[in-house]
């Protein structure tokens, strides 16, 4: 689908590389060198047969193997996603829990409405505001996420704080709302009432009975956001000059660099599938009914 979709776009690889003002003979010569003047089926078969053998092919644009580009970009995206998750998951869940425990009180409204407000702000708006505050005015954090060569673990984390903040703002409200509604439902359930009537301490009721059930839908939400955090951050990656897989795919699409584009998209597809699998696994861990294969 990606391959065919790319073919209907105007222009061709040689033209994308040499530009609109290049001589047509030069464009034809380059297309021939790259092999993109071969029949589409031949090109596709060549790529897919190599891919299944672990060879992602050679980039038309960079004239070097695709795999290192994709793996580096994927690794970078995963690092950024991890930092964003580490920030947003506990804080988002905590916010939701606090909101639910203070239902309809001012604290609940602040968390719910505040979360909703920041969630709808586009990343490029919050990103620029955060850069202006922390990067330009205060100069506390580097505004580019590309860390210096040979940077250690903590230096890399330091460079990722600022780009992960807009992601935090986008996801916080979402996760907090899901945690809140899960909590409200769980708090209102029969098993919670039973646990309270049994005389269990309030803390035990929350930890053992409420949270475990309340977080099930939140985990699903978090898992579905994994794909977005790893593959859909083109705006953030552009703004913070970060070499993630989103910007890699975007660049490849613009340059009609099909080996790079197809390999990048397929890799993100694999990440989505793995993330969904992990979510299912966690769901079953937290919900014995699923683990036992029954809905009783």
């Amino acid at each position, binding site marked *: 689908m990606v391959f065919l979709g790319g073919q209907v776009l105007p222009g061709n690889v040689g033209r994308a590389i040499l530009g609109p003002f290049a001589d047509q003979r030069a464009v034809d010569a380059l297309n021939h060198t790259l092999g993109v003047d071969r029949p589409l089926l031949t090109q596709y078969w060549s790529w897919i047969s190599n891919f299944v053998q672990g060879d992602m092919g050679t980039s038309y644009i960079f004239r070097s193997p695709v795999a290192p580009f994709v793996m580096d970009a994927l690794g970078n995206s995963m690092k950024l996603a991890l930092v964003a998750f580490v920030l947003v998951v506990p804080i988002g869940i905590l916010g939701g829990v606090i909101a639910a425990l203070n239902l309809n009180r001012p604290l609940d409204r602040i968390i719910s409405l505040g979360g909703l407000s920041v969630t709808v702000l586009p990343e490029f708006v919050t990103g620029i505001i955060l850069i202006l505050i922390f990067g330009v005015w205060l100069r506390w954090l*580097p505004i580019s996420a590309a860390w210096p060569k040979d940077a250690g673990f903590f230096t890399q984390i330091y460079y990722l704080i600022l780009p992960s903040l807009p992601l935090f703002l986008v996801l916080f409200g979402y996760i907090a709302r899901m945690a809140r509604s899960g909590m409200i439902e769980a708090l209102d359930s029969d098993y919670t009432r039973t646990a309270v009537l049994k005389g269990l301490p309030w803390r035990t009721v929350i930890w053992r009975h409420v949270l475990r059930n309340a977080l099930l839908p939140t985990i699903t939400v978090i898992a579905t956001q994994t794909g977005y955090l790893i593959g859909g951050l083109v705006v953030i990656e552009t703004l913070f000059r970060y070499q993630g897989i989103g910007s890699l795919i975007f660049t490849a699409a613009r340059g009609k660099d099909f080996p790079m584009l197809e390999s990048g998209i397929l890799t993100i597809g694999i990440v989505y599938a793995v993330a969904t699998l992990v979510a299912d696994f966690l769901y079953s861990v937290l919900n014995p009914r699923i683990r036992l294969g029954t809905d009783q």
Partner: protein
Amino acid sequence: MIKNYRILDLIRRGRSPLENHLIDGLVDGRVSRRDFIRHGSLLGLSLPLLGGISTAAGFGMMPSLARAQGAPGATIRVASSVPAATIDPVTIADAGGLLVMQQVAEFLCVDGPDLVLQPALAESWKPNDNGTIWTFKLRKGVKFHSGGEMKADDVVASIDRLADPANSSNALSVFTGILQKGATKKVDDYTVEFHLDAPNGNFPYMVSSDNYNAVIVPASYKGDYEKSFDGTGPFKIEKYTAKVGASFVRNEDYWGPKALPDRTEFTFFTDVQPMILALQGGQVDIINQMPVLAGVALLNDPSVDIISLKSSAHQQLHMRCDDGPLKDARVRRAIALCLDRDKLAAGLMKGRSALGNDSPFAAVYPSTDTSIPQRKQDIAQAKQLMEAAGVGSGFKITLTTERYLEIPEYAQLIQSWVKAIGIELELNILDQGAYYGDAVFGKSNWLDSVMGITDYGHRGVPNVYLAAPLKSDGTWNAAHFKNKDYDTLATSYIAALDLEAQKATAGKIQSLLLEETPVIFGYFYDYLTATVKGVAGVQPTAMSQLFLDKASKA
């Protein structure tokens, strides 16, 4: 102005008739000193000699080209656009890539500020009588970073490689009809002759930095430039990481004065806004190329210096001359008369542009005939022309263009202005890939649209603008303009070696294009480079090159 005829006579003795004619023009006041310097540099006269003639002709000393020497040892950090493809002198086509390549590799001559050609790997050059053969004398003792001496064989191989249609050369569109493969000939180790297809009075620009592929690399070059980054430049590659950045260190074996900075670092950005934030956040020292609208915040920032170069870069608004209501030249003139060019220059371009007069002859060119009256907004006359053309009640038409720089805003202004004469302009603003398409007739919104706006980068001479978009057989003739008189004039201009002959032909071309108006040239925008205060000695060119060998930091 006291003229020293004794010295002038002495200088004249060794000069060709063409050179003497230029000197006479200066002495008689037909050629300004600025135009004398620029055209003299084109003919291969050295800058000291040009200065000497200028002094003897009573114009006083030339301003020194040498800049104040800053402190050595700095690391200069540059924000650059991401190279769009692998860096290869033959194929490279984008600003980010050529900026990196230009740090290590050099040209025969450099089209500097004010379009004065300055010697680099060639020490001098001169044409034969009719401009069909240009002879370049190469500098001796120039070494490639890999060790060998740069000689005529390297020049012949480098230029032949670019002129060969089988090599995917991005310079082929420059050399087509001018220089073929095999026409660059070695005379001896330090002399090269270019045998041209036709007389060409501006040829040195085609092998200067004006043709950004024309860097000289070893004759043995076989591709994979990113593995060697071999060249003769004042900097050598330290590290290159595709899509991320590049760094360079001083070349201690450089043929000229050694570079002042110890290192330079280039950080690649995919968008200009992060570049601006990086400059404001202290993470880079220079933004090599800054579009005026995107960089408004920096234009009046006291912590930033703006280097503003007058250029011939512009947005061409083409109108199809072969079909529909625009077929009538009166309608095209009427549309051109709707533009308020002063507002374009002062408002849209924030004062960082020069007015256009609907021909490619920008004010920066010494050959431009400045006596041709500037076209101004005149709605009453435009209405009369519409009436005379039988479309007084107006019509509806589509303007197709690319989403790039200030073009969408320019299109909206035109849309608003032409309403005054009853034209309802529908805008079709496309992504650049969709606009250019396959860039051949029949498969390109650019070349097939009824009206369109296309960005054209700077050129040191107007040859390319005169030929490809305007000649009857021009490969970029989006206006489908076919005019035999124009073709003859353009060919004549390109062949002329003499500045006054060029100027006379330019005047005729300017008048013809004002009458026909196949393309509206509304303004020529300045090339802007931003540096933080304290960075000195930076020399950009309007071709996106950046010379940092004299750069320093306070």
